[in-house]
């Protein structure tokens, strides 16, 4: 099996706040190999967006790396200079943003932006870059790329915008493609089309894909392996099949049970996980999920659980998983 292309290694990130540092990401470790698609799932506030920002080296101003780093191309890309980070972005690591309406500049045409986004590609004239952009738009299923290039983002439909955003990310054939909630802003039919498109593009893409979403269905459709995050920690990882069908962490089980796609009967109340996320300024000393976990014991509340290997490339952060 090939070596990981990008590896998040024991990464902890805290945001400065008035109450003290908010530990948004705590000792997260994950990896993606060439040709592999991994999913990162969890509810809002679990740290998945922070993780996505770290992968593309665009952390917020008040964020601080308190441990670990992101290994790519043989170095920690969070500790290199701003200029080196800039050169990585777009060219080696690219991102598909959540809301394409606001992710494109409103006063420049799509074409002007797609040409600018190839700024790091040397030896290509503006016209050639435009041709590249048109070819990529065609590839993501935009019927009239020339027309699309001359439009402003507000003049495109939601689906076209998301296709253009995907084309932008693929323009320079990056090694790592990070997709932050790629279908959240879309309606259901559009979502199906975009998932279909991403699956198709995967076939001849050799890099690693990281999909960050709260939507279990998207990960199920697209990813080989999945990391489940809760309160800034990776609580379970494994092949999508293992995690969805043989979940070992109680949070993963609860998350799957809450997915409306898994409801077979009509219910007046959608299932939810009772309780709230722990305070990330002072996280609990035991398991972070203990307060909401139906199986929590005294041990769970006092001691942080170990990360237990429960199968081949399948692990869960739970005392119960040991048994």
């Amino acid at each position, binding site marked *: 099996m090939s070596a990981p292309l990008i590896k998040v290694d024991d990464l902890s990130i805290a945001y400065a706040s008035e109450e003290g540092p908010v530990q948004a990401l705590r000792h997260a470790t994950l990896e993606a190999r060439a040709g592999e698609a991994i999913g990162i799932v969890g509810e809002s506030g679990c740290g998945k967006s922070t993780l996505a920002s770290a992968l*593309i080296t*665009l952390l917020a101003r008040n964020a601080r790396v308190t441990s670990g780093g992101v290994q790519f191309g043989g170095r920690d890309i969070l500790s290199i200079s701003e200029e080196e980070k*800039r*050169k*990585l*972005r*777009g*060219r080696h690591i*690219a*991102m598909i*943003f959540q*809301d394409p309406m*606001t*992710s*494109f*500049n*409103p*006063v*420049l045409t799509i074409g002007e932006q797609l040409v*600018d*986004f190839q*700024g*790091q590609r040397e030896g290509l004239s503006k016209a050639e870059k435009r041709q590249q952009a048109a070819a990529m738009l065609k590839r993501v299923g935009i019927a009239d790329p020339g027309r699309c290039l001359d439009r*402003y983002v*507000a*003049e495109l439909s939601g689906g076209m915008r998301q296709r253009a955003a995907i084309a*932008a990310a693929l323009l320079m054939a990056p090694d790592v493609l990070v997709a932050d909630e790629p279908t959240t802003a879309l309606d259901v039919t559009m979502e199906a089309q975009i998932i279909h498109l991403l699956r198709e593009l995967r076939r001849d893409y050799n890099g690693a894909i990281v999909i960050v979403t709260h939507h279990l269905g998207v990960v199920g459709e697209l990813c080989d392996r999945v990391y489940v995050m809760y309160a800034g920690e990776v609580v379970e990882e494994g092949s999508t099949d293992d995690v969805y069908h043989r979940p070992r962490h109680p949070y993963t089980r609860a998350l799957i049970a809450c997915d409306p796609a898994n409801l077979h009967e009509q219910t007046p109340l959608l299932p939810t996980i009772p309780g709230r996320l722990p305070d990330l300024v002072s996280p609990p000393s035991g398991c972070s999920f203990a307060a909401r976990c139906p199986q929590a014991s005294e041990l769970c509340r006092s001691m942080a659980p170990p990360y237990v290997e429960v199968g081949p490339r399948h692990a869960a952060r739970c005392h119960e998983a040991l048994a």
Partner: protein
Amino acid sequence: MLSYAIKRIGLAVLIIFVVMLAMYAMVFLVPGDPASLALGPRATPELKRALMERMGLDQPIYVQVWNFFRNALTGDLGYDVWSKRPVSEMIAEVFPNTLFLGAVAMTIALVAGIGLGCLAVVWQGRAVDRVLAVLSVSMISIPSFVVAIYLLLVFAVWLGWFPAIGAGEAGDWGSQIRAVVLPAAAIAITWVGYLARLVRASMLEVMAANHVRTARAFGLTEARIVLRYALRVAIVPVIAIVAVGFGSILSSAVFVETVFSRPGIGTLITSAVQKRNFPVVMGSVLFMTAFYLTVVTLADLLMAKLDPRVRDTLRG
């Protein structure tokens, strides 16, 4: 875009019409008839009637209004009651001075305002930003005629760097530029403060926008992001303000021209009002209104060209 332009121009014509009607109403609301005010208490009734006739004030008001507009359309703004010179000629003589003053003031305001605004963004939250905040608010709150008097005192009377009065020698650019510095600075200072605040707020908002993050995520240089991606969005509200500001700059010119005894539309209107020289007042006001509306309309069209979202709201 074309239908928008037509709509804008139609609106401008309507505004000119309303302004001139208001001016006419004012002439009739001023106590005493213009002729006796102009001639003084010892004028004979015959003299008064003659003057009324010459000023066209004996006609019914709708005839006067009609005549005024009809003549104005052909470029005839009437004649000075005293010197009998055509008003249009008098305006043509002094307007370049006012325009030059306004243009220099606007240039100072734009360069200094946008520059200071961008500085405040780059040093956001630091000492420079805080000093600029205090400075800008002070510049906004001081009226331009007060600034004018202090500038006169310091730079013209004490230091003697710039002339205190006049617009410089005709044909001598050096002296004209030296003469415009103080009055232009007096007018610009409010706008420097205002634009600095506006550009700062506008830029901060844009720099936090998602599309700036996208541009960063594609490895664009920070300079390119600020100048091409952010400033182009941030400048749109500034253009709207600057266009409206041009009107305010022209009205400050009335004060400042008086303080510096500079020939210009401002001094022309002030002296005409004092002498009840109505044709000159009407003609100058009509001219200034038309000029101002032209600037604002052009700015609106420019904005629609720069920002496709403005165009869309007009289409819909």
